[in-house]
């Protein structure tokens, strides 16, 4: 009888052990699965945080050797990998292309010559207008427009110094200065290239208006959003009488025809 009692205990123990082992196995498996899932969530969370911390800015853009020449600076504290450069040419139908860049930029470092090695030729003198986008492996992007000033009207202003000129019947005539100011008033990231003015035109009620050399400078290669450039000319006015006036206008080459600045000079 003693030995039979022992047998039932052994059988009970066997079942108890099986139940315990199964439960422990299931709990361990569940914990492992949850741990793996947790690791994935943590990794995704870190990826999202890194996405937000990635930060790079446009430092300069020009057209060099008929190719884009973009410089960006990594202002964040994570290295970035610029994978592609998207270029949409608004002047050509359905012209959206991308070019592989695949370059790493360390935190605080500057990456130059982006666009110099891609097979896309750009004529800075043309009226081309481009939308450029740089994309990173984390999915962030830097987008800006670049092109001719002839796409949208710009803010322009003309200043004549001095505003009133003393009449003179003979030489030496009085010199004066024309300051032609052009502002890129675009609210989006819109970079204008090849800013070059036409020679100012004048209409006088009397006397002689003679434009000197200029403009100074002859051109600005780029004009970023919110920036202003100033062109300067010298002119002389003579052989007029008091009460005459000159109406002077200036505009940009490749600009919109109706977009110009004007000023009137009075002769005293």
């Amino acid at each position: 009888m003693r030995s039979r009692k022992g047998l039932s205990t052994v059988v009970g123990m066997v079942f108890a052990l099986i139940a315990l082992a199964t439960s422990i196995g299931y709990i361990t498996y569940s914990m492992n699965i949850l741990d793996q899932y947790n690791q994935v969530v943590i990794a995704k969370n870190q990826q999202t945080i890194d996405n937000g911390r990635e930060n790079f800015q446009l430092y300069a853009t020009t057209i060099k050797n008929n190719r884009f020449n973009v410089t960006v600076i990594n202002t964040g504290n994570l290295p970035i990998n610029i994978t592609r450069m998207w270029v949409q040419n608004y002047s050509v139908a359905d012209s959206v292309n991308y070019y592989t860049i695949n370059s790493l930029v360390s935190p605080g470092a500057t990456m130059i010559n982006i666009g110099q090695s891609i097979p896309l030729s750009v004529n800075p003198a043309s009226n081309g207008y481009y939308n450029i986008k740089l994309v990173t492996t984390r999915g962030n992007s830097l987008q800006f427009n670049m092109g001719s000033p002839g796409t949208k009207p710009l803010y322009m202003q003309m200043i004549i110094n001095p505003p009133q000129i003393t009449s003179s019947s003979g030489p030496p005539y009085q010199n004066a200065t024309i300051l032609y100011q052009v502002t890129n008033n675009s609210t989006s990231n819109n970079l204008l290239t090849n800013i070059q003015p036409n020679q100012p035109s004048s209409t006088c009620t009397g006397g002689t208006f003679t434009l000197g050399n200029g403009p100074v400078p002859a051109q600005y290669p780029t004009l970023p959003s919110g920036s202003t450039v100033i062109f300067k000319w010298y002119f002389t006015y003579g052989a007029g009488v008091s009460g005459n006036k000159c109406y002077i206008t200036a505009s940009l080459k490749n600009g919109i025809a109706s977009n110009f600045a004007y000023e009137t000079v009075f002769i005293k």
Partner: protein
Amino acid sequence: MKYMMHAQRGLSTVVATALMLSAVAVLGTTLVLWSNSNLRGYETSLATISSSNTNRINEFLVIENVGFCKANGNCLKGHNYINITLANYGNIGLNVTQIKLNDSGYVYTFTNVPLSPGKEYSWKNSTNYPWSSGKPQKIFITTGRGAIFTTQVTAP
């Protein structure tokens, strides 16, 4: 006679014990098998849910570029459309099943657009989509695993 009685009493006890042990063994085995089967089912279910959720979380689709085309401008199709380029920057493949524009009736469903890691896919509206300059456009991309990727772009 005494020996016979003793022997018969022992036999019934042995039989009863054997029956009890058999019953316990059968019941115990059944219980263990049933619980094992249930636990296997739970394990499989847990593994499936975990795997599908993990894969969904690991999907990394980037709406890399959105181009706008005007019918009367530089558009080849003769109507307004949006050109969306998607890139899979993740390490698992995915299927694009739906593109929805602006919470509107412009929902485009796909049956099979697989996108391997590192690959991209470009899509244009085949019918007119009336986008307006300066107005933001919301884009929703749904994948086969149910992940939704969104972005907002302003039409030029």
